[in-house]
């Protein structure tokens, strides 16, 4: 997979993940172009299109479009399945996910994606494992955070 984009129906980008290094300019251009073409398509059309030498696989969930670019020999349906799996993961993590969840917790959404895909390949197919990894990492994060806070607190006390 070359990259993954999430954008709203209004064409606002919500999440982007590039598995190929490109310059910002190119990224922007590609994004603009793709958002336009995908949004112009009617709901009944099929979710694959050929674009440049890539294949675009997209799917709409509520107001969000999930859009992946894959290479010629890659399998479209499995990409669709990947998108779906990612949505499931988000759903599980946030508990019935909505666009706002992704806007406000975009870094979490990225973390989940990173646990699920790595370098454009599926890393972990088990939903449970992905969520477990995320939860543990979160736990770790919280622990350090509380430790950090308590340290501040101690420092605070000492100042007195």
């Amino acid at each position, binding site marked *: 997979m070359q990259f993954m984009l999430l954008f709203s129906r209004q064409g606002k980008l919500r999440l982007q993940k*590039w598995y190929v290094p490109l310059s910002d300019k190119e990224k922007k251009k590609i994004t603009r172009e793709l958002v336009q073409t995908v949004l112009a398509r009617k709901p009944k059309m*099929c979710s694959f299109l050929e674009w440049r030498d890539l294949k675009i696989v997209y799917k709409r969930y509520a107001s969000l479009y999930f859009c992946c670019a894959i290479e010629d020999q890659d399998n479209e349906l499995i990409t669709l*399945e990947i998108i779906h799996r990612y949505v499931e993961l988000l759903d599980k993590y946030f508990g019935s996910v909505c666009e706002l969840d992704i806007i406000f917790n975009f*870094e979490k959404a990225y973390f989940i994606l990173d646990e699920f895909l790595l370098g454009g390949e599926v*890393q972990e197919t088990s939903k449970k494992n992905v969520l477990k990894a995320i939860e543990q990492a979160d736990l770790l994060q919280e622990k350090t955070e509380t430790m950090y806070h308590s340290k501040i607190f101690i420092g605070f006390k000492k100042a007195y």
Partner: protein
Amino acid sequence: AKYISQCIDEIKQELKQDNIAVKANAVCKLTYLQMLGYDISWAAFNIIEVMSASKFTFKRIGYLAASQSFHEGTDVIMLTTNQIRKDLSSPSQYDTGVALTGLSCFVTPDLARDLANDIMTLMSHTKPYIRKKAVLIMYKVFLKYPESLRPAFPRLKEKLEDPDPGVQSAAVNVICELARRNPKNYLSLAPLFFKLMTSSTNNWVLIKIIKLFGALTPLEPRLGKKLIEPLTNLIHSVVLTTVLPGLSVAVLISLSSGMPNHSASIQVLTWLWRLSAVKYLGLLAMSKILKTHPKSVQSHKDLILQCLDDKDESIRLRALDLLYGMVSKKNLMEIVKKLMTHVDKAEGTTYRDELLTKIIDICSQSNYQYITNFEWYISILVELTRLEGTRHGHLIAAQMLDVAIRVKAIRKFAVSQMSALLDSAHLLASSTQRNGICEVLYAAAWICGEFSEHLQEPHHTLEAMLRPKVTTLPGHIQAVYVQNVVKLYANILQQKEQAGEAEGAQAVTQLMVDRLPQFVQSADLEVQERASCILQLVKHIQKLQAKDVPVAEEVSALFAGELNPVAPKAQKKVPVPEGLDLDAWINEPLSDSESEDERPRAVFHEEEQRRPKHRPSEADEEELARRREARKQEQANNPFYIKSSPSPQKRYQDTPGVEHIPVVQIDLSVPLKVPGLPMSDQYVRLEEERRHRQKLEKDKRRKKRKEKEKKGKRRHSSLPTESDEDIAPAQQVDIVTEEMPENALPSDEDDKDPNDPYRALDIDLDKPLADSEKLPVQKHRNAETSKSPEKDVPVVEKKSKKPKKKEKKHKEKERDKEKKREKEKKKSPKHKKKKHKKEKEERTKGKKKSKKQPLGSEEAAGEPVQNGAAEEEPLPVRGTSAPPPRTCDIRGSLQEDSQVTVAIVLENRSSSILKGMELSVLDSLNARMARPQGSSVHDGVPVPFQLPPGVSNEAQYVFTIQSIVMAQKLKGTLSFIAKNDEGATHEKLDFRLHFSCSSYLTTTPCYSDAFAKLLESGDLSMSSVKVDGIRMSFQNLLAKICFHHHFSVVERVDSCASMYSRSIQGHHICLLVKKGENSVSVDGKCSDSTLLSNLLEEMKATLAKC
């Protein structure tokens, strides 16, 4: 925007603060802004700062920001190398994980090179979480740094059998992706994958494996057959579970391997077509099937044609692809007609262009095989020119030229069409988007000129070509115009002269003289040059005409000769004549000053002079002749003008089958020349009529049972059904195969795109690793590494001396010279019948072969240990069923100051094949085995060969020793797979490597005076040892010491001798050996007392055995 810039200012403030939490927060914000399309590259350094935070919370954010915003051009990326390395080796799996994830997004060749080793270590991390990520990221690393593929591959292979399904699927993923680039290398893994496929229940993994097999089956047809059964099972189960990806892939593969069940799967496909998303895939699958089983798809033509009407462009394009493969002689016209209507309807130029190219592709495929009526094709092409704004003008033009040249019979028609085109050229040229389509005029002009003899009204066409409007065309087209005007002119001239119309001829000349100047003024150089040249020619002709000299012959002779199509590869195939060096300069290149000064000026002069000046008229006649001669000469020499010498490939009309097809009769009933631009539809009708008539005729013939005069193919084709072959082409199709130079080389090498990024991965994994390929290790800058190159030199010298000395000296002495010390024969328990073996024996390195024979006898004798350096270990056998017998001879040899090479001879004494051998040695503090880069201490080192029964081979391993003053023992295990008829068993063999102190000594000759000085210097410590009960002669004794302990004799007086040796680390060891009645005493002096005492101990042991 204002708000955003305010925010960015705020963030900049926050980044300046020391508090890491604030910074992280700011970076987090930046990441969001970056997504919204704002440039945050200025903050790259801050991102790295946050990445290097010790707290996971911040590190996580830092890596996220990095993975989002870094790319190969980010220069600070180099700064991250160490940080990433540190995180990779962090004890917390999540730190490592997050670093790997980040790395996957911004890995650069440099990073890949530097970190490949670390990642490889992580591949055998204890946590599956890390292993999985490390395996996946290796793919990225391979892409960026292909050299790492070979060292990493064995490890990757191991991971296929990892206990954790996640790691396993990651490894499958990576290998699958790799295999797509170069499947050949991975063929050997097929059995493994086959096992995985049949045992795995994870659909994701299954799909990848099937995909991998898809890449492998073309290389190994047997695999396809083997796959049939599990795949059909899979298809059925998958259809039920409605995991569609599996289905589509499975179907694709099954067909590519030529399975019989494809008809069933097509049915499934068509059934699935109702769903829109799948429709696309169905088409895609079909096109794959088409390649292998064209027949089975053709029946679905209607369905596919329906898809052409689909709203969705990608579906339409897929369907178009399919059409390409489905045409036959019978349905070509029908299909193209359908496409033409689509062309008219289509909105959007890209789709229309696509249609256009497809039409041309379809028609021209495999040498116009399916076209029965070329008039129809020409008219299709002409119709296509009327499309607005297509970019494919040149394509159409090329087709026109191609057809006109290759199909002789069509030329007349083509010329008439083209002249009509030229006539209406203003339409084409004046249309607002004249971008591509005016290219057609290029073809039109050329055809009209070259085949001007077929023109009905050449004069008319000539005028059309000389219209002032023409000058608005692009330069290269004008140039063609000019050239062809002359051809036309020559033709007209000839006609007029034959008809005796001198006036008419003069009028044409006048026309030329009048109109040509407009080209002379062209801005395009080529046009200008041609026009002025021709203008002068015409003017000269005019003069001759005035004198009533017949000139037509001469003029038309200018253009004699026929053009043949030349295969695009022809140039390449012309063999380079011997003695011709294309790279050599013909003339020495001019120096810059010369060429700059003189060249341009000269050119200018020439041009200015030439144009106003007339050519000297008296020379003209000769000149013309000369030119003609020159042209002929040129043609004769030109490999592409094979005209005069019939080339073997030229098929022209000498194929009787084609020639005798009754063609003309039908054409007679139809007026050949369709006025104006004919519609291709007419031809469709005509064609149908024609076919109908043919059929009737045939029926009639059949009824009468009279075989008529039809010859060739026709005779055989009186079958009741009208097959493709029955449709006789309407024209005498004269498809000339493209010409090749006669001595063309038949090689059809596909030049690979050298820029293909994946080509680098095209590495033969079976080759053993070469030293140069080892991954660079991160080395500390210590003295050792810098010294090592120098140290190499003496070693090489020594080696080269060896053979000479050997010739002269006695065998015993040879041994002295050898560096090899250590050997060890492992006793190994044998297969039930076989006897125990336990002996060691020594061999000198250089004489491996000649000494092989003694090996057998020594073994039989069960000779006891000869060498103190060798050690005998009874081997505990772990494998129960069939412990595979083998012996290991371990010979150490010294190379550098701290490295010892151990050569292990493995001999297979069992009846099974041994493969997958791996040697793992438990490193001690002092001695370490040099392993391939990236492998950890606990990994085995693969033995680079397999052993069939009874074969022995030698593997060499390098050990690094730090201190040599003490003897070392290393424990090791050799694991291998023994395979025989009953199956394969995994076995292990434990052994010990004994590095004695003697093995660190190198035989160094020393002269007595130097020896004396050494002893006098006094900085040597002393020690002595005495052994009783020795009856051996002193001579033998010395030889033994020399051989086993690598000493050389400095001086010998009676029963007293001084000996010398040097260790690899430069210790001097001096010995004084005295033989008494029944005893030997050895006094030693050495710069290291420990070494000395150890050595003497060893010596004592050796002597005690005498």
